[in-house]
């Protein structure tokens, strides 16, 4: 599903070259759940970004479904993000001037053809994330857990194969974090490939089959 070979991501600052990721080789199979662990600054988010086509590597190869995504032109890369990737951000990243429903349908706009289909898919996603009852509420008025559920609904709305989560429980209490893990379990059961970047110990021992990968200073350990 996802194959990473000799991946490097560095930033040239002054005369020194700073490596965010170095010599990463990783394979993630279809339907697998992988937890990327490491302290902040270890490169988890950067790696997640590169897998999701949000960032570009400095060298190396990233293949998703047999397609190299590291050097795709924007139009194709965007389409890839829209169709294959669902992302749950650390700060939820909801648009505050829109309601939950409107936030959730955002990823469908550039790829959907008719509004009817958009409505259907949005409703299904809301149901899945059990947030239907807050559909028409401005997202700025939702609680942390509800925002998280809107974010989940938005990530799954276009029925992507891969779900990426960036520190999903950083802003949640224990109860909500456990609920989040339940949602992930459900997505896992639906056959989605899930990659979670986190330093939350709750993810060390998930109630379903998962693989933990440790990152340190941009290298796999």
């Amino acid at each position, binding site marked *: 599903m996802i194959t990473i070979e000799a991946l490097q991501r560095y930033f040239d600052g002054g005369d020194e070259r700073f490596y965010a990721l170095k010599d990463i080789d990783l394979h993630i199979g279809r339907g697998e759940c992988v937890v990327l662990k490491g302290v902040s600054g270890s490169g988890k*988010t950067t790696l*997640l*970004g590169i897998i*999701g*086509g*949000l*960032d570009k590597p400095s060298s190396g190869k990233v293949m998703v479904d047999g397609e190299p995504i590291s050097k795709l032109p*924007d*139009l194709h890369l*965007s*389409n890839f*993000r*829209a*169709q294959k*990737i669902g*992302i749950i*951000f*650390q700060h939820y*990243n909801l*648009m505050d*001037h*829109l309601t939950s429903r*409107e936030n959730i*349908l*955002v*990823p*469908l*706009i*550039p*790829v*959907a*053809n*008719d*509004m009817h289909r*958009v409505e259907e898919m949005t409703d299904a996603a809301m149901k899945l994330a059990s947030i239907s009852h807050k559909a028409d509420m401005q997202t700025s008025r939702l609680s942390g857990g509800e925002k998280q559920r809107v974010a989940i609904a*938005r990530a799954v709305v*276009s029925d992507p194969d891969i779900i990426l989560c*960036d520190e999903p429980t950083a802003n949640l209490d224990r109860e909500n974090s456990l609920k989040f893990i339940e949602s992930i379990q459900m997505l896992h059961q639906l056959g989605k490939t899930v990659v979670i970047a986190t330093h939350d110990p709750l993810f060390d021992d998930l109630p379903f089959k998962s693989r933990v990968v440790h990152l340190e200073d941009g290298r796999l350990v």
Partner: protein
Amino acid sequence: MRSSPFLYFFTLQFFREYKNHLATTVISIALIFLLSAVLFISSSIKYSIDISLGAQADFVVERVRGGKKVDLPIEWIDTLLETRGVQKVTTRVHGRYFFEDKREWALIVGIDFMDEQSNRALEKLVESVDLEKFLFSSNMLVGDGVQRYLKEHFYPKGYNFLTPDGKYKKVSIFGTIPNSLNLMSNNMIIMPQELAKEILGIKKSMVTDLTLNVPNDNLWDSISDKIASLYYDIRVLTKREMQKAYENMYNYKSGVFLMLFLITMATFVLILYQRYSMVFSSQRRNIGLLRAVGWSIRDILKLKLYESLMVVLVSYVIGVSLAYLYVFVFDSPVLIDMFLGGENLDHKIKLIPVVDFGVLSSIFLIYTVAFIASVLIPTWSIAVTDPKEAML
């Protein structure tokens, strides 16, 4: 076309965040309003001039001595009629009459009520007058402005004109000239030719000038040359030349304004550039999010350019409509003086509503091009936001 979801989201976004566009929309409306008001006025005036010129004779023949226009003998008619292609030579008697205070004046036009008129508007006017009564004593028809002036100076029924040989001539007001030719007839007095000659001090055997028609357009230039060679002191004016002179005059007036407008516009463009750079950079995170969830650069460009286009369209429609109301319904207070000048007796005129495609398209074109061109670069720079910005 994936129009419908896109348009749905565009409308949503536009109206939820209308505050971002409010300031630019208001300034745009003001600018478009000003420009269109000025251009409406000038095109309406041009239109009324065109109408009245269109109703006039093709040629005017004058006598010029020492660079000054002088009266010409009636016999010229016969000579002119001998030229092939010339039809309907008519005499005209007209001149300015200055009222007592020597400041205000009216245009006295003497016409031969029994003869065919060279001017279609005059023809209609003559038809509407009861000639038997009108010609029985000294009577005149006056324009709106003249009537108002006379009333204010306590001459509601008639006026005692002072002729050049020092005698007073009493003439009664028979009626007013209908409004259809408002602009040209506002300060006009129409009376029989003989009476006009007496008041203006023109000899019986002379007239002010002659008009004639040449039905075949193609002959205009050659006939103009032929007539010009008949007498050494003759001057021939064609309708086209007059039209051109007026066209240039109003082009000049609105052109000066347009220049000022363009300078304002240039400033506005700079403001727009900065304003949109600012607004967009505040949306950087949201745009990054859109990019992260699968919007391409092209999609963002489309969304943002539609927004700008919407601002332009809304401001255009509102600005132009307001200008229309201001000019044609409220008679454009203040601005109109710029165009007519204070020379006329009274220039409270009613502008004929004319909506000229040229004017509308010019306003739209210059505004849209300048507006979109100035937001193009800020729009692009926000559209290429890296999707990873959403992860920061």
